[in-house]
């Protein structure tokens, strides 16, 4: 090989090695440092222990490789006969021990910081449902957001694309599987406490950049906190907003992979404006349960409600799937309407059938029941009115 060729190769190898460092952070190889004290602590400890492992690995693997090369029979060596040494054993028990203590110290301080729930500015309850999140603002020192409450689920575009054999090119979809209809909104620089709980099974609320992961357990309320640092936010914000995405992190059944979390961190002014917009929207959409709907109106609205809330399990054609029963020709959908209303409003404990009474308003439920009773060959001909739903709650 010519000299120039060799130097060329060496030079490109060197360049590749130089690139490795930044590449580690950029090309999707490593943990992100995130935008909160939590996530900084996590990242710093991760790197500390990682480097300890790398150094230990080089030492141990180095010895092994040296030995593999030099201590082989084909080199004509005669095997040594030593097979014990108390001194050596003590040394290599004590060294790892000391290293571990040096890890335990920063772990302790960071854990105490992570679990410090004092002086929070906003408390938000996050309830995991199969398979969406419900957020409720329950305490706020900045503005009166009490009672702001909404569901947050996978956006329609991703949801359509993720159907089996949809043949949609998912790389073209904006934040595929990481987008929701209604993101959570919080202000920058304020300490937010997230109170997680589960409606049906255990979920976990995880947003890596915020350094929060906490299980959402039925019957229990867990707390965790984060505060997006102004300095970190300034670097990533655009028009006073920065968006952070995460996913449910605890297996929670069929659509576990499809319940993302999106947190929009905004300036304080924007936050206040958002809260008041939420409140007026809630007032405007409060439905009048007394209104009487026509059957066509109910079926039309019911089809939309069904597609958004029911089709994932019972399937668009009502034919069911695996553990999720068919509605087409089902005993309940073709039985007395009171039973049908009851299961939709109250759910079926111990199964994935949620109590939709807590999620949908009277009109939605009346509509979807009417739709189910008059679709796919279920020709019941009857209908449910919002007032009936109200009475059944």
């Amino acid at each position: 090989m010519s000299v120039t060729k060799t130097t060329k190769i060496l030079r490109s190898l060197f360049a590749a090695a130089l690139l490795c460092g930044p590449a580690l952070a950029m090309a999707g190889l490593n943990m992100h440092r995130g935008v909160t004290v939590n996530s900084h602590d996590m990242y710093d400890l991760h790197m500390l222990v990682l480097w300890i492992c790398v150094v230990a690995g080089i030492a141990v693997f180095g010895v092994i490789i040296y030995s593999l090369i030099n201590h082989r029979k084909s080199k004509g060596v005669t095997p040594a006969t030593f097979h014990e040494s108390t001194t050596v054993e003590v040394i290599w028990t004590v060294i790892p021990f000391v290293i571990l203590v040096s890890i335990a110290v920063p772990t302790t301080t960071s854990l105490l910081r992570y679990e410090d729930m004092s002086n929070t500015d906003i408390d938000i309850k996050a309830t995991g449902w199969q398979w969406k999140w419900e957020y409720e603002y329950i305490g706020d020192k900045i503005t009166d957001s009490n009672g702001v409450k909404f569901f947050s689920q996978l956006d329609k575009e991703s949801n359509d694309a993720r159907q089996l054999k949809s043949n949609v090119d998912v790389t073209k979809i904006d934040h595929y599987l990481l987008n929701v209809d209604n993101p959570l909104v919080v202000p920058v620089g304020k300490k937010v406490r997230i109170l997680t709980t589960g409606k049906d099974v255990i979920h976990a609320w995880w947003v890596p950049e915020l350094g929060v992961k906490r299980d959402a357990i039925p019957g229990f309320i867990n707390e965790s906190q984060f505060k997006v640092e102004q300095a970190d936010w300034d670097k990533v914000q655009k028009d006073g907003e920065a968006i952070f995405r995460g996913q449910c992190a605890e297996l929670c059944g069929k659509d576990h992979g499809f319940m993302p979390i999106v947190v929009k961190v905004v300036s304080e002014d924007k936050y206040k404006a958002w809260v008041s917009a939420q409140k007026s929207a809630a007032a405007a959409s409060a439905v009048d349960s007394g209104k009487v709907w026509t059957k066509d109106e109910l079926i039309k609205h019911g089809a939309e409600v069904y597609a958004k809330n029911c089709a994932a399990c019972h399937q668009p054609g009502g034919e069911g799937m695996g553990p999720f029963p068919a509605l087409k020709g089902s005993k309940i959908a073709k039985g007395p309407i009171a039973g049908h209303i009851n299961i939709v409003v109250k759910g079926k404990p111990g199964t994935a059938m949620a109590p939709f009474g807590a999620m949908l308003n009277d009109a939605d439920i009346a509509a979807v029941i009417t739709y189910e009773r008059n679709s796919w060959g279920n020709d019941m001909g009857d209908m449910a009115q919002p007032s009936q739903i109200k009475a059944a709650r």
Partner: protein
Amino acid sequence: MSDNHHHDHPTGIKRWLFTTNHKDIGTLYLWFSFIMLLIGGAFAMVIRAELMYPGMQIVDPNFFNMMTTMHGLVMVFGAIMPSTVGLANWCIPMMIGAPDMALPRMNNWSFWILPFAATMLVAPMFMGGHFMSGQGPAFGWTFYEPLSGQNDKLAFFVFAVHLLGISSIMGSINIIATILNMRAPGMTLMKMPMFVWTWLITAFLLIAVMPVLAGAVTMMLTDKYFGTSFFNAAGGGDPVLFQHVFWFFGHPEVYIMILPAFGIVSQIIPTFARKKLFGYASMVYATAAIAFLSFIVWAHHMFTVGMPVAGELYFTYATVMIAVPTAVKVFNWTATMWKGAMTFETPMLWAIAFVILFTIGGFTGLMLGVATSDFQYQDTYFVVAHFHYVLVTGALFAIIGAVYYWLPKWTGHMYDEKLSKLHFWMSTISVNVLFFPQHFLGLEGMPRRIPDYNPMFADWNFVSSIGGFVFGASQILFLFIVIKTIRGGAKATSQVWEGAEGLEWTVASPAPYHTFENPPAIK
């Protein structure tokens, strides 16, 4: 001497159904676990095929969950655990100079429960219409409540776990009774081969934790069918209790899978380094220390469950302490190779790969043990990478190494050295292509147990799938090599390996049906 039988034994199917011979039963266990490896492997191929590209192409999400669940259950309870019991059956009596296992009839029973348990486990997959819409377990191999309680065929699962547990407990009783009572005169405890030691400790672990698992599934059963509320918050129970009970079983369980592997590697390395195991006594103590510590670290699997901070601190400290005896073991293997005269027959290759790759899994274990950063790792592909390094390149690699190591003793034939090296290199390269990128995926934020993902995870998933397919195919080659060896090949001597030491190498190859009917003399 070899045909000096006490009685005739039946042939054909009856030989296998009614056998009480430790070698026959060992063979049964090994074949059973190999079949399970292939079935569990087929499930893994479905997982990797679906994850090869973003978007849902092949299976629906429920079926995907069923695949991850059944893959884990079949590999843990069907492949790894029975295979080490098979090795124990074949080797322990020969290694300690005993004529057979202490309780031969129970031995037969503890094996023959297994096929029924396995059938029970997979049966619900075929219920409820066709295969694709099966109602099999889809709640993860960790079967957390209340999700598992939603499964309509839960009773099958519970019954299968009970059977598996009974089988393991009987197997363990047998192993303990054999080791404690049937050693040849002069075979003191501290003269026993390491494999025997690690199995003795494993058997105690099994007896301690299998009943805990049985308790957990029984509580699930009564919650589901008899109206109790152990794990149901609405009835005054606690879903987190389930996790504590499960992991009190689960963490020792991972050591149940790895300790026999430690033993295997401690047999293989001295043989091919032609040098005694370094620090035999400290190896015994380290194994015992690991076993003890494994009972007091369980909640490191539950750091995000919302424990009090004191609990998080305690479980961090205790967990990272396990790294000390684990490190001692790695150092001892290294010191055994140091200044030896090594040769690199196939079993040695698997053992060396074990030492290096298991250590990588140990490193990530240490990282996961630090609660603060575990909040980011927990339930991501980083955890998946960790436990596959310790279980595949750890436990499974050691088991495959053991098969190559003792196959000449079992069959009387040498395996095909060229093919087996091909098997080794294909497996070792592909397994790293398969699992190493999963570290990156996890750190980048990809949760585990999801059937589809954002395209930012696409590249490494593709790489991982390719590695997976090659690794899967390599194990078909393994099957071929084993069958070829059984059917013929160069005659093996009794010694088989130049540097091998131990009683099993003093009997003919293949080992006669009955060995050591008169106890051997121990130097």
